[in-house]
C-alpha cells in the first residue's frame, strides 16, 4: 500500500486527483458574489429593480396624478417604493432568475459541486440583500432630492424590510421551484404589476371599496408599504400588525418552498 502511494506521488500529473471542498465561508462568499454579478449584468432585471421604482418615485412625486391624501406626495410615495423595491428583487427578480437557473441545469450542476444546497440559498439571500441595499440607497437619495422628510425609528424600518424580504423570497422561490421557467417569468411579472396597483404602493388602499381594502391589506406588499409608511411618514412605534402579517407570509412561503421546490 505504502509503495503504491509512493509511486503515485512520483508520477504526480496535472490531473492527479486531489478532491476536497473549499472552506464553507469561501464557497458561500464566492457564490454570493457570482449571483450578484449575474443579477447586475442582466438588463431586464435592472429595469425591474432599479429603473421602474426610480421612475415611479420621480414621476408620481412631481406630478399630481394620484390623490395621496394630506401631506407631501413624496412622504407617501417613498415608503411605498421602498416596499416595491423589496418586491422587485426578493420576489420577481429572484423568481425569474432561479426559474431559469433551474431550467438550464445551473442548479443541477451546482448540486454536483461541494457547495451544499443551503449554502446556495444563503448566497441567494445575500445577493438579494446586497441589491436591496443599493436600491434603498438610490431611492432614499432621490427621495431626499424631492424633499422627503422621514421620521421614526430606523430599526423598525430595517425589521420591516427584512421580514418583507423573507416573505417575498419564500413566495418567489416557491414559484421558481414548482412552475416552468416561462410560467414563472409571466407569473412573476403579472404579480408584480398587480401588487404595484393593489398593494398601497402608489394608490392608497382607502381608494378601494372597504371590503376590498380589508382583503388587500392582508397582502404582504400592503403590510410592508403600510408598515413603512406608519413609521417613516407618521413616526409611529413598532408596527406590530404589519410585522405579524409579513411573518405569517414568510413562514408560509418559505415553508412551502422548502417542501415543494424541485431542483430539476
Amino acid at each position: 500500500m505504502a509503495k503504491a502511494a509512493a509511486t503515485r506521488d512520483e508520477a504526480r500529473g496535472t490531473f492527479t486527483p486531489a478532491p476536497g471542498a473549499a472552506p464553507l465561508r469561501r464557497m458561500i462568499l464566492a457564490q454570493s458574489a457570482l449571483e450578484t454579478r449575474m443579477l447586475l449584468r442582466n438588463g431586464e432585471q435592472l429595469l425591474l429593480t432599479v429603473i421602474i421604482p426610480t421612475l415611479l418615485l420621480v414621476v408620481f412625486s412631481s406630478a399630481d396624478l394620484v390623490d395621496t391624501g394630506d401631506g407631501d406626495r413624496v412622504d407617501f410615495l417613498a415608503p411605498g417604493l421602498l416596499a416595491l423595491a423589496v418586491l422587485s428583487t426578493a420576489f420577481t427578480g429572484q423568481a425569474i432568475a432561479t426559474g431559469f437557473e433551474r431550467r438550464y441545469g445551473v442548479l443541477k450542476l451546482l448540486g454536483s459541486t461541494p457547495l451544499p444546497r443551503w449554502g446556495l440559498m444563503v448566497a441567494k439571500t445575500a445577493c438579494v440583500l446586497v441589491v436591496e441595499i443599493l436600491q434603498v440607497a438610490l431611492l432614499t437619495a432621490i427621495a431626499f432630492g424631492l424633499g422627503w422628510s422621514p421620521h421614526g425609528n430606523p430599526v423598525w424600518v430595517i425589521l420591516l424590510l427584512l421580514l418583507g424580504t423573507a416573505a417575498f423570497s419564500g413566495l418567489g422561490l416557491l414559484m421558481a421551484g414548482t412552475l416552468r421557467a416561462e410560467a414563472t417569468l409571466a407569473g412573476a411579472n403579472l404579480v408584480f404589476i398587480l401588487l404595484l396597483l393593489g398593494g398601497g404602493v402608489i394608490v392608497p388602499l382607502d381608494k378601494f371599496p372597504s371590503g376590498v381594502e380589508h382583503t388587500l391589506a392582508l397582502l404582504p406588499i400592503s403590510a410592508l408599504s403600510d408598515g413603512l409608511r406608519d413609521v417613516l411618514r407618521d413616526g409611529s412605534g413598532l408596527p406590530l400588525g404589519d410585522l405579524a402579517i409579513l411573518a405569517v407570509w414568510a413562514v408560509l412561503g418559505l415553508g412551502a418552498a422548502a417542501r415543494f421546490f424541485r431542483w430539476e
Partner: protein
Amino acid sequence: MDSSSPAVALTGLVKRYGDKTAVDGLSLTVERGRVTAVLGPNGAGKTSTIEICEGYRRADAGEVRVLDLDPVRDAAALRPRIGVMLQSGGVYSGARAEEMLRHVAKLHAHPLDVAMLIERLGLGSCGRTTYRRLSGGQQQRLALALAVVGRPELVFLDEPTAGLDPHARHATWDLVRELRADGVSVVLTTHLMDEAEKLADEVAIVDRGRVIASGSPEALCHDGAENSLRFSGPPGLDMGSLLNALPEGAKAFEVSRGAYRIEGEIDPQLLATVTSWCAQHGVMPERLTVERRSLEDVFMELTGRELRS
C-alpha cells in the same frame, strides 16, 4: 480511502418514469483508473443511469455504490470527489466561460490551474462572450472543463464529444487519456462506436435499459468474431473453386458484381491462400482489405438494429 472497491458498482438497477421503464435491471462494474464507455442508441437509458450515479435521480430498485458510497445518502461526502459533465446546460446564461470556471474552481480545495485548462481546451477564444452566445462546441468544452477543475477521482461525462468538430474532439480524447494516465476514473456515454473503440478500456453496450454486452473493445470485436476480407476483380469468379482452397469453416461470396467477400478467421495463412488462388487464375485482386468487426457490427448482431437511430 479504500481504493480496492470499484469506482462504480450497479446491480439490478431499475428506473421508471410513469409506466415507462427507462433502466431495466442494469448491472455494471466500473474499475478504478479506467475509461469506461457506456455505448447505446438514443433513449437507451444512459443519461438516466449516469444521473443515478451522480445522485440526481433515485433508482426505483437495485443497488448503487459510487466510490463505495451511496450517491443520495452520502451526497455530501461524494460530491467533492466526483466531477460531472451534464449532457447540456449547467451554466448561468449571463456568465462568461472563464468566470464560471474560476467560480467552480473556488468551490474546491485544490483546483486545477484555470488558465491551463482554458488553454488546453481552446476556451481562450470565448473571451468576454456570455454562455448563451457561445457556440455549441464551446459550451461543450466548458462543461468538460467544469467537470475536471476540482481534481475529482471519478468523472462522469455525458456525451462529451457530441457536436464537436474533429479538432475539438481530439482535444477531448487527449484530455480523457491524460485523466486516465493520472489515475482518474472516467465514465463516459456516447453513441459513437469509433469513440468507444479508440478511447475506452471497457465498453458496456446498453440497449433498452440493460447491458447487452461488455468488455474491452478488442474482446467485444474479436470474441468468436467473423472477420472478413474483401476484394474486387472480374465478375463471375468461381467461388466453389476458391472455397475448396480455403480452410474449413470459411465462406466466400460474390456480394455484388465483381465484389467479393471472404468470411472466417482471417490470418496471414488465409490471406496467402487467397492471393495465390488469384495468381493461379490470373486475377488481380484490387482494393484488397481485411475488415475487423466493429462495435457497430456487434451491436447489429445483438439487436438486429443500427446503433445510430
